[in-house]
């Protein structure tokens, strides 16, 4: 019985005693007090035991590395649950044991302390939840701001593409002005003589008006009156003609005025318009009864199309406005997350809190390279639900074959190792030994998954390969001239295979033993893949579309079928898949030694598999590093199982470097 359980039972037992004492006719108050005190002490001890356990559990949870805020929230919730459970366990002691106000009062500091702790851990949960809510809000806000920015940017781009420079616009306007000036000989106007002529005409007009006034008042002076009215009219027209020329002269001056911006262009246009309007009003007043030839001069300036200027100017204003809006949005975007505490800040807060409360802060274990879960690529890796990951389990049944042997049929649960016990070696004399010289093939079937798994075993393939290497020596009917030649041939083959032991004299058993030893040596020297290794795939290599399939060996296709066998490939990705078929680590970082990562992660051999992503390299055949969360279909070709014996290592990066590669 654990101490916790023992104490709980003891407390309950004393509660029962307390109840029984209270039920006595002459209750012994002294004893009741004494039992009460004892219960208090036991409850405190019980709380202390629970707290020790809680502290251990909290430390364990604190050591869990949180990759994301969601992970952090899970940690905080787990801690809260533990503390709440302790709270419940202590409070449960008082269920069905009477109100016991005195006892509760004496335990108030304990209850307060526990409640305070629950509140504190609840506030930790709240803090993380608040950050997650704030992140969601910030995401939403950023989405809206980015949409608005995109809209502004699109509009801005359209305006900029349509906008013509003020100088080009001015050139076009000046050209139009020039036509007006040339057509009307405006540049030939002698302005000083015009002024003089006008002065004379105005002086004369004064005299004509005086005479006309006299003629109108004189008797029988109609001839004078008519004559002076006509002369006055003529004089007015002459003056107006000078004013017209004066107007044109001013127009000329204005049209010739240089501008250097849209604003100046606009000011000049407005001045011209004002001049024209004034002239037009005067002409209309003077020739109220009809259109005169002079009006064309007054309206000619209006004929210049100013819409382009207006458009350009309004575009300019709009562009400025949009640029301002974009800058404003960017400023807002840069502050959407100011109020959010990042994971590290939260960890700091929690650690400080732990130190303040006298606890050792939980230091998370150093993690491997973070697994970045994003987009379709990783989804396909982590969601193998729809795929058959395991062979169907068929109960084996005993059957008698045609040769009268009792065999197990449907025994797909047999592991290779079990089955391998009687297949330690294939000696060359076992090749073609039990085969009739010519046989008809009656049926061709797909190999069962269990058999396929064996065929991809590195050990089996080595045995089969070594048997081939010596086949020409041992096959029945071999025509080797003498033992010396045999020995020499054996040595050559053995040397080719880098066997450690050289054979001094021909001995069939010794050669077989050496081969067996070599098989073991090869088995020990497994391929330790690193990102950046250059490899080739033999035709039998199996490629997969997902890393989980590569490790579980389902839905593969042959490298030769996709034309990938015999070409140089690079190991671009490495994924460690755990026993449940989930990827627990993925990297694309150059020179990372995947096996070492697995070791550093504390994974036990046999409890995980390694899938390698292969790529073809760039145009020059150089290694291309790819982002971990995004496929590069231009170079990436598929996944292979690192244990696939059909991988031929051309350049093993870390072996070449003479070091173990980067570890974590």
């Amino acid at each position, binding site marked *: 019985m654990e101490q916790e359980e023992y104490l709980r039972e003891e407390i309950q037992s004393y509660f029962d005693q307390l109840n029984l004492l209270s039920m006595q006719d002459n209750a012994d108050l002294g004893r009741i007090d004494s039992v009460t005190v004892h219960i208090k002490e036991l409850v405190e001890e019980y709380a202390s035991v629970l707290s020790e356990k809680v502290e251990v559990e909290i430390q364990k949870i604190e050591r869990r590395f949180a990759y994301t805020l969601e992970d952090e929230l899970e940690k905080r919730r787990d801690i809260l649950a533990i503390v709440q459970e302790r709270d419940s366990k202590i409070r449960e002691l008082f269920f069905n044991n009477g109100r016991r106000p005195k006892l509760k009062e004496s335990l108030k500091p304990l209850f307060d302390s526990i409640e305070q702790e629950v509140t504190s851990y609840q506030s930790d949960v709240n803090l993380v939840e608040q950050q997650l809510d704030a992140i969601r809000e910030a995401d939403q806000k950023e989405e809206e701001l980015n949409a608005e920015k995109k809209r502004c940017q699109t509009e801005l781009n359209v305006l900029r593409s349509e906008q013509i420079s003020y100088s080009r616009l001015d050139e076009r306007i000046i050209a139009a002005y020039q036509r007006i000036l040339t057509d009307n000989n405006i540049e030939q106007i002698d302005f000083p003589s015009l002024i003089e002529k006008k002065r004379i005409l105005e002086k004369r007009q004064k005299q004509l008006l005086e005479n006309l006034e006299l003629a109108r008042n004189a008797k029988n002076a109609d001839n004078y009156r008519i004559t002076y009215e006509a002369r006055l009219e003529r004089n007015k027209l002459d003056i107006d003609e000078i004013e017209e020329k004066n107007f044109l002269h001013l127009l000329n001056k204005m049209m010739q005025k240089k501008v250097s911006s849209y604003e100046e262009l606009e000011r000049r246009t407005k001045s011209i318009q004002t001049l024209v309007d004034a002239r037009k009003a005067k002409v209309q007043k003077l020739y109220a009864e009809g259109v005169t030839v002079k009006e064309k001069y007054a309206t000619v300036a209006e004929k210049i199309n100013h819409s382009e200027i207006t458009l350009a100017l309004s575009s300019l204003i709009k562009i400025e406005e949009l640029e301002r809006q974009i800058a404003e949005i960017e400023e807002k975007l840069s502050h959407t997350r100011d109020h959010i505490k990042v994971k590290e800040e939260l960890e700091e807060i929690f650690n400080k809190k732990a130190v303040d409360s006298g606890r050792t802060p939980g230091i998370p274990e150093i993690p491997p390279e973070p697994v970045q879960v994003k987009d379709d690529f990783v989804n396909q890796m982590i969601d193998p639900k729809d795929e058959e990951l395991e062979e169907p389990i068929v109960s084996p049944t005993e059957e008698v074959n045609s040769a009268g042997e009792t065999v197990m049929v449907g025994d797909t649960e047999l592991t290779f190792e079990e089955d391998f016990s009687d297949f330690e070696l294939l000696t060359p004399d076992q090749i073609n030994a039990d085969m009739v010289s010519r046989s*008809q093939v009656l049926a*061709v079937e797909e190999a069962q998954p269990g058999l396929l798994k064996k065929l991809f075993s590195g050990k089996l393939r080595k045995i089969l390969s070594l048997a081939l290497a010596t086949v020409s020596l041992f096959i*029945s009917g071999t025509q080797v001239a003498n033992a010396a030649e045999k020995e020499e041939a054996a040595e050559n083959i053995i040397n080719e295979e880098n066997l450690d032991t050289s054979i001094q004299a021909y001995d069939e058993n010794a050669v077989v033993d050496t081969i067996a030893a070599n098989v073991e040596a090869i088995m020990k020297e497994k391929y330790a893949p690193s990102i950046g290794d250059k490899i080739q795939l033999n035709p*039998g290599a199996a490629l997969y579309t997902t890393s989980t399939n590569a490790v579980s060996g389902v839905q593969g296709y042959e490298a030769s079928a996709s034309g990938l066998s015999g070409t140089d490939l690079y190991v671009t990705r490495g994924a460690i898949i755990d026993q449940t078929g989930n990827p627990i680590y993925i990297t694309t970082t150059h020179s990372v030694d995947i096996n070492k990562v697995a070791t550093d992660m504390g994974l036990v051999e046999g409890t995980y598999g390694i899938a390698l992503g292969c790529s073809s390299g760039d145009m020059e055949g150089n290694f291309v590093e790819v982002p971990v969360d995004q496929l590069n279909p231009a170079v990436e070709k598929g996944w292979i199982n690192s244990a696939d014996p059909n991988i031929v290592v051309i350049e093993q990066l870390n072996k070449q470097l003479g070091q173990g590669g980067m570890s974590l």
Partner: protein
Amino acid sequence: MMDIKLHTVLTLDNNQKYVVVAKTEYMGVSYDYLLQLAPNGITLRNKAAIVKEEKENNSVYVIQVNDENLLKTLAPLFESQLA
């Protein structure tokens, strides 16, 4: 007509089963490296064979290769697939 592919299981007229562990083509002829199986089609046996494929009247035959020179030629071709 039946097609012998890599990693398929062949049942011969003497009821023996073999799995194709390697396959190659030499001088326009297909050759297979076979490994014998128990009748359950999954348990491996310590018997292997190097055979030539021959097709005749819609039937497929496997013929044991005994020629030493041919075996010497074929062995590395199979080996490269198994290495």
